[in-house]
């Protein structure tokens, strides 16, 4: 079992966008893309939260991944984000906006 919970808050509008995905229930091509993005950024090794001051109107992202053996949550933002994490955030953001 692998579940991804994605939440985006803040922004110029201050609107929350969220998404919950069960990778095992997704079509295999979509599931593989997301598993690959989690692996690329080494998600479970990422720090939970950067100690950066808030940036006006910036999006703040919360991502939680739950598997059978581990659960990990990170908080990040556009200006504070590690480049390796950005493709995952962009893909989850796109799916959340379509949801």
């Amino acid at each position: 079992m692998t579940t991804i919970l994605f939440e985006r808050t803040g922004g110029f509008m201050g609107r929350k966008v969220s998404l919950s995905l069960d990778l095992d229930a997704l079509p295999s091509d979509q599931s593989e893309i997301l598993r690959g993005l989690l692996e690329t950024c080494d998600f479970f090794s990422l720090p939970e939260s950067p100690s950066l001051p808030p940036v006006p109107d910036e999006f703040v992202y919360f991502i939680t991944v739950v598997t059978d053996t581990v659960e990990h949550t990170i908080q990040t933002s556009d200006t504070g984000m590690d480049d390796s994490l950005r493709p995952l955030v962009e893909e989850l953001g796109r799916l959340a906006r379509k949801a």
Partner: protein
Amino acid sequence: MHTHRFIHCIVPPHMLREISRSGSGAQKIAATASLAMSEQVRVNRFGGAASAALATLAAEGVAPGVKQRRVYDAKNGSGLPGILIRGEGQPPVMDAAINEAYDGAGMTYDLFHQIYARNSIDGSGLPLVSTVHYQKGFDNAFWNGSQMVYGDGDEDIPINERLFNRFTACLDVIAHELTHGVTQHEANLNYGGQPGALNESMSDVFGSLVKQYQRGQSAAAADWIIGEGLFIANVNGAGIRSMKAPGSAYDDAVLGKDPQPAHMRDYVNTIEDNGGVHINSGIPNHAFYTACITLGGNAWEKMGRVWYKTLTEKLRASSDFQNAADLTYQSAGELFGAGSTEQTAVKVGWARVGINIHGALEPPTENEGCLAGFLRLLGVR
């Protein structure tokens, strides 16, 4: 009517600037006026209010500010600032977002300079750096501490699912972001809770004023909508926020209903969005709107000056709504006199949102002496 003889525009601007700095008294005035006239010609599509302000500045001998705009293209990536596309004085390019960011930064600069005599974000001519086409499907704009950043909306999803246009399409959005820079260099309001909501409100206030100034609209004629035109046509909403009627900007099947309160009794306590900075900003926004409507006329001329003075001279990083109310009242008194109609309008504005001015002493009336007035204030009579 007194008029100045302008130095004709055959004299290049750099020479005019030098004369305006080091010429004789009459030469300084003439050179300053000529520079202002050159600026007026260059921006001749602006409304009458801007032109009149330029002439006033010239007459007062205030040297024109020097805009330094730079607009970059992130090419849908995240690297900032990206590739420089248009610098100051360069002609428009075949990219609407680039031109909008350039023009919007200039119009924002103009309000702060022409009306409040402020030279750019930091007051010292800081270059106005903007980046457009940030990431893909980026439905946002933000100030990152040193520059403006704009996304193209949600152009990456099917058209029937989209909600947003590009964020440079709205002048007040551009002015909002730039004002975050001004706030950062002045009160530096903490970006959380009430100080954060005040920070957001200041950006909405001057965002709206830039739009009203460019359109030459009085407070009564303005729409007081922030982000007008940011939604695509199939969204049921006039814009992102309404300063006139917080909570009424949109009511859409996908977006839901505008959550902004217009009164302290509806203040939203939340940990999201840095303590609801974009929600509770509706309260000070509505106070400003009410003060402007109560006073009448052009909002940027008097009430804008009150808010600007408060932002730049009085507010502190931790200031809350009550502080803002008391200090705008104080500013209005200093600018226009105790008991003036301007100061009364400020009081009315804050009272409308449920905040009474602390220490808002009514002056003695014409028919009572100081002692009698003092006793009245103490509630003795």
